[in-house]
């Protein structure tokens, strides 16, 4: 750390370098912190969370009972102890609440005044944050598994919607209508994701174990379909041609720079693809438990030098190194399956929500006090420790 600082001071290093080193260190030391709490509002499992990109201050969460909550993550109190308060809630008593489980929530990328939610009640709602009223409601024929707004789009304001219907719907916020349909999948579309690099590129994952990449300007069909065997016909059985997984593909995530695409499937695998040509990079992440029949929300860190993937794995969150596939750590804290996780790029914090109704905040542990400092503190430091941390061996064991 000191070396990085001096190098920075002397101007030897790129400013990015120090930043990367520090954020990597922080990501590696993520832990469940007693100082950080998130209000328990959900009475049912938390299906999805999203942190807004503008300020990084507000977090949306959607519950299995249709409840939507907005949390304030910023700690202005100046104390380490902080509970993320629920700023506002669309509860069961609200007129506009989703009837069934909310599957996806997403902030409008450029403004916190708007967010979009979709649910199993076959609707997608565009909400006005101030009023907590839906400004627009899109209705579909089947359950809505997933939707996504392009984070970088400037030329269009399309929402890609994956429903029970194999056709992918494109809804235009400008006109408030469904303007386009992408055909190609054979089963329900579990996850859709816009590329963070090219605004017209869209990736979709379906229960027919295929992942397709589309250019929405091209009406004729998808750009390419990801193939786990990279076109090697000898390895694939006839029905497994052009499949990304040997099961339902329910997780989809671009890396921060949009160069790679991560997919997870119910075959307990996670795969990393080159998003430019659809090549399987064949990174082995080992077994990634995945039993979900719905969309699973995984996320990738941003701003670290080796990037990390956070993927729900049973009742814990697994942290993998993106390119090596090495399992860095398992974040254990949930008492039931984890459905979603979201990475806060500014503070290197991770938020995860699971079926045990909790949203847990994983906060980097502060660097321990240096040895020299501790020596002059001495006994005072000892006494300041929480009494619960002390051993209480009774004397009769001697």
């Amino acid at each position, binding site marked *: 750390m000191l070396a990085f600082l001096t190098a920075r001071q002397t101007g030897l290093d790129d400013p990015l370098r120090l930043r990367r080193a520090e954020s990597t260190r922080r990501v590696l030391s993520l832990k469940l912190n007693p100082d950080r709490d998130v209000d328990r509002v959900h009475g049912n499992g938390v299906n999805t969370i999203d942190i807004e990109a503008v300020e990084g201050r507000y977090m949306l969460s959607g519950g299995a009972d249709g409840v939507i909550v907005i949390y304030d993550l910023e700690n202005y109190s100046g104390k380490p102890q902080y509970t993320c308060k629920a700023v506002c809630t669309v509860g069961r008593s609200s007129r506009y609440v989703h009837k069934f489980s909310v599957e996806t929530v997403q902030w409008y990328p450029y403004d916190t005044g708007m967010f979009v939610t979709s649910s199993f009640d076959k609707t997608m709602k565009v909400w006005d944050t101030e009023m907590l009223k839906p400004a627009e409601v899109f209705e579909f024929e089947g359950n809505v598994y997933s939707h996504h707004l392009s984070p970088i789009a400037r030329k269009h304001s399309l929402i890609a919607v994956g429903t029970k219907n194999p056709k992918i719907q494109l809804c235009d916020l400008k006109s408030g209508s469904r303007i386009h349909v992408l055909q190609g999948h054979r089963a329900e579309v579990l996850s859709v994701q816009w590329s963070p690099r090219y605004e017209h590129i869209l990736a979709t994952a379906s229960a027919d174990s295929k992942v397709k990449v589309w250019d929405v300007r091209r009406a004729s069909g998808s750009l390419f379909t990801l193939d786990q065997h990279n076109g090697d016909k000898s390895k694939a059985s006839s029905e497994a041609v052009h499949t990304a997984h040997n099961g339902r593909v329910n997780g989809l995530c671009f890396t921060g720079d949009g160069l790679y695409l991560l997919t997870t499937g119910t075959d307990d695998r996670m795969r990393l693809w080159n998003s430019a040509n659809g090549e399987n990079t064949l990174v082995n992440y080992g077994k990634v438990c995945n039993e979900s029949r719905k969309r699973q929300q995984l996320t990738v860190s941003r701003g670290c030098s080796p990037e990390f993937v956070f993927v729900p794995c049973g*009742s814990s969150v697994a942290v993998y190194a993106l390119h090596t596939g090495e399992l860095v750590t398992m974040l254990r804290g949930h*008492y*039931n399956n984890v459905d979603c996780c979201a990475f806060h790029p500014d503070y290197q914090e991770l938020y995860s929500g699971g079926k045990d109704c909790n949203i847990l905040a994983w906060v980097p542990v502060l660097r321990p006090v240096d040895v020299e400092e501790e020596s002059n503190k001495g006994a005072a430091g000892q006494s300041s420790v929480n009494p*619960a941390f002390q*051993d209480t*061996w009774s004397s009769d064991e001697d």
Partner: protein
Amino acid sequence: MELSQRDRLSELVEELTTSGQPQLNQDKMKEIKKICKVSNDCIDHVYHSVMSQLSQEHAEVRLSAFQIASELFSRSHHFRMLLVDNFQGFLELTVETDSEQPLPPPKEVARKLRSLAIQTVQSWQASYGTAYKKLALGYHFLKQVKKVDFLDAEARTVAERRREQERRRKMERIYKERVEAATKDMEELYQEIEATLKEMESCMRLLLPDYGFTDFPPVNSSPSDFQPANECPSDDDQPCCSKDVKDDSKQGKKQDREESRNEKKSSERKKKEQDRIETKKNRKISEVKKGKGKKETRSEDEEREAEKTKHWNEEKVKDGQEEEGSNEEEEEAEPCDEDLFIRNSGLVSHSYSLDLDLIPGLHVEETEDNEAVVSTVIDLYRLITTKHLPAVQGWVQVFTKAGAEQQLLRRALDLKRSLEAALQKHKELHIAYKTRVRRVMKASSNSEDDDDNDEDDDFEEVPEKEGYEPHIPEHLRAEYGLDPSPSTSAASVTTKLPAKRPVAPPSQSSYCSSSSSRQLKQLKEEEQDPTCAAATLRVLRQHFPVPSASSSSSSSGPSSSHCSSEMKPVDAPVVPFGLDLYYWGQEQPSAGKIVKAASQHQFWVPIETEEEVENDELRAESSSRYISFPGSFTPVSHYCRAPLGNGKLCQRQDRLKCPFHGRIIPRDQEGRPCSQDDRLREEQEERRKMEEQPDWRDAELMRDIEAATGENLSSDRAGKKGKGKKKKKYPNLSDLKQSANTSRSRLEKKVFNKSTMRKVAQMMSKADRRKHEKFSNQFNYALN
């Protein structure tokens, strides 16, 4: 950490967890703590061994492991860190948070473990919850997601509670159905019961003598008589809730009526009774008088009055009896002149003491007048006790159990109460029933008595038996015109003292006897008639004077048998009857010959059949008799006298062979055999016995004893023999397989045995194949 410590810790944990005890051994636990105190590595090791024990599929192991964990949890921060880190798994193993991983058997221990774990987690949360975030999270998870009620003593989760609720709902449904059925039943039976009750009521009213006295209808009786009639419909309208109250009021009225009636009756009989009172200085009469006086003042309380009333009734009844049975002394004593009384009656003295046994309570006797009513009452009584009351009780039970509407329950209860009241009334009446069987007989005898009486014409006459009947039951003797047996004649003596006779319901025999005197007179007339049984009997008696006496009846049986036993010679042997006795003193022509059945065919007769076969054995049997002569018993006077382990001699007195020491041989003072051979044989035997192990020296038992006492009892030698038996690994744990040893599992083992299955399959395929072979070429079968 040293290796020895490590081993010792593993050993201790294993010992503690496999002890099977509900509580931990404190010494061992102390040792663990002592070692753990040394370093965190030890705690690491203990943690891992405890967790591995926790994942064992045995609730006792888990319970003990959990106890160790909770002991250490409160001691060591490091242990807390470790445990809380894997708190989810810990909860799964102890609290059953994952429904797919239920706690292992045995069930009771698992339940105990669960409740203990939940309590412990709560206490941990209270003391460490703020410091260990995951602990708090786990607690909240249990509380909010699993909805564990920490205050609930049983610490049930939602699933369990739901199951409980479901069960309750099911029960409710069943109860509801039952209630509906019962309500329907009640609707149907209600009218019937009402009718029965009403009938019973009116029967009672008819039976009770006060209603019989219509000569002097009481002034106030007519309105009160009408009143119940008016009330009955209203009873029907209301769900009979206030019926009992009305019943009470009716009772009260009845009593009033009785009272008034009694007054009148008393005034009517006053004169007669006055005489009686004068003639008899009886204490009771004065009491009666007093009671009468009180009745006149009407200042007495109800109960005693009622009792008095009953007394009166009784007296009246008895009066009737006296008038019937005795010579109606009282009627004769009516003239007030005392001398005249003496002269007329022929009684010697004025001072008679007449003992009156007054039995409290009403008594109604069945007579010919009220016979029909009484039989109706009996029928009703039977109907109520056997049908209505159980049904009503069943309804009440169903309603109370199901918590049905108050009204239904009240209705059923009221029904029950009124039924019981009716029964109670019936009981209070003390109706003296004649037995029904006798009534039939009596009807027939009565028809002979008074031919002008037409009331019995409705009855079908039972045809009298003609001819000789060797055995006639006691109570039918009179009917058959036989002499009453001595016992009945003794009873007839009592009829001459009717005043002394208790007023208890007359027994069967006494009734017989009362009628027998009259019948005796008739007997002679009957004997003249050749068509009746008595005449036949007379003829029979003349022909066989002796057998008719001996075989007359069971009552004379004992005396006759006594006579015959007296005549028997004392020393004559009693032998069972046999063929030899049958042919006693005769030549046996066909003895020992077996006749073979010839062919019964008309034409075809086998030639070679020998018609008769001689059998010597049979012939001998028919003419001989085996008599076994056992001889007399002589008690054994000698002892076994073999030396025992405690220095004494065996005191058994067997005739030939002692079960412990073999054949009894002469022995000297010390119990040594007298002869040399015997001594040698005994020594040999002893040596042989030493060689072989007695069966009580079970190898395992010996090993246990050795372990306990530390002595070498040469169990190793025995152990070699019992090598085949496998030693159980943890003897203290309750055996899970044992609990699976149910009848079902045993049957399963038999039925699903591989060889059995194979055998059955083989048989079936064979049968199948046979059919196929038989009909393989007949396509006709295939088409049909």
